[in-house]
């Protein structure tokens, strides 16, 4: 019985392809081809629907840019930065199914930036207004003497198109030196003992030094 059905199905397929193009199309549809198209349309529609919900969810978000100034006498190890990141992990929100697929829940995020404008280095954190207090608390917890100031986004003060009459642009990114299976070098491996009680541990020293050498107009 099943063999008969299979044979007649194969015969139908051959019959379909021996006709004109519209008849072939109709035949493919009749033999289940609509499933493929509907499958594709379903996922395209679902993707766009998800993007629409996300846009609606993010519509009222207000971003703030915080500049962090840590006094030079505030000696801390890189462990403090790790603790700051741990503190900020509290921002993780667990969305329920309706929140995710009906209200388009989107996890709020942070961006940590180190910028140098004409050699003046600044640590910036871009966050959504809702997490302003969380960010400030996480900084003060590790750097009690730090100054956290809300600043205007520096991106607004630079040209939109490059290269232009006055400026050129150059970019680079970091890649892994070895296979990704190798562990990343942590700040502990940057420690250098220069005396019995003095240990230097500054994994970003080289990086910041080159930032401080950025000249006027750069």
């Amino acid at each position: 019985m099943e063999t008969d059905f299979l044979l007649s199905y194969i015969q139908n397929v051959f019959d379909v392809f021996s006709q004109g193009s519209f008849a072939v199309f109709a035949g493919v549809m009749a033999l289940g081809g609509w499933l493929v198209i509907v499958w594709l349309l379903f996922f395209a529609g679902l993707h766009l629907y998800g993007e629409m919900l996300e846009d609606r969810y993010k519509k009222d978000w207000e971003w703030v840019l915080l500049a962090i100034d840590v006094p030079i006498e505030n000696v801390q190890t890189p462990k403090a930065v790790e603790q700051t990141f741990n503190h900020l992990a509290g921002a993780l929100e667990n969305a329920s199914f309706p929140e995710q697929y009906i209200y388009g829940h989107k996890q709020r995020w942070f961006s940590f930036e180190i910028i140098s404008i004409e050699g003046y280095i600044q640590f910036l954190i871009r966050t959504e207004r809702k997490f302003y207090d969380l960010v400030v608390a996480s900084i003060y917890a590790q750097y009690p003497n730090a100054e956290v100031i809300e600043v205007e986004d520096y991106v607004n003060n630079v040209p939109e198109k490059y290269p232009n009459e006055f400026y050129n642009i150059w970019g680079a990114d970091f890649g892994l030196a070895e296979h990704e299976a190798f562990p990343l070098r942590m700040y502990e491996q940057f420690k250098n003992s220069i005396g019995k009680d003095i240990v230097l541990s500054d994994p970003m020293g080289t990086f910041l030094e080159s930032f401080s050498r950025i000249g006027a107009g750069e």
Partner: protein
Amino acid sequence: MSDNSYRLVVSVIGTLAGAFIFFGGYVAGTHGWWWAGVLVLALFPIINKLISH
């Protein structure tokens, strides 16, 4: 894309999917139920309303 554009595209996609499902059934059967094909057009306003605010 604006919210209206998203709604429009998603509604068109939903209507198209309905049309393909109908067409598959129509050509596989005895070419009956043609009026159901007309009803597929109603999917557009239905989906559009469902996904509005």
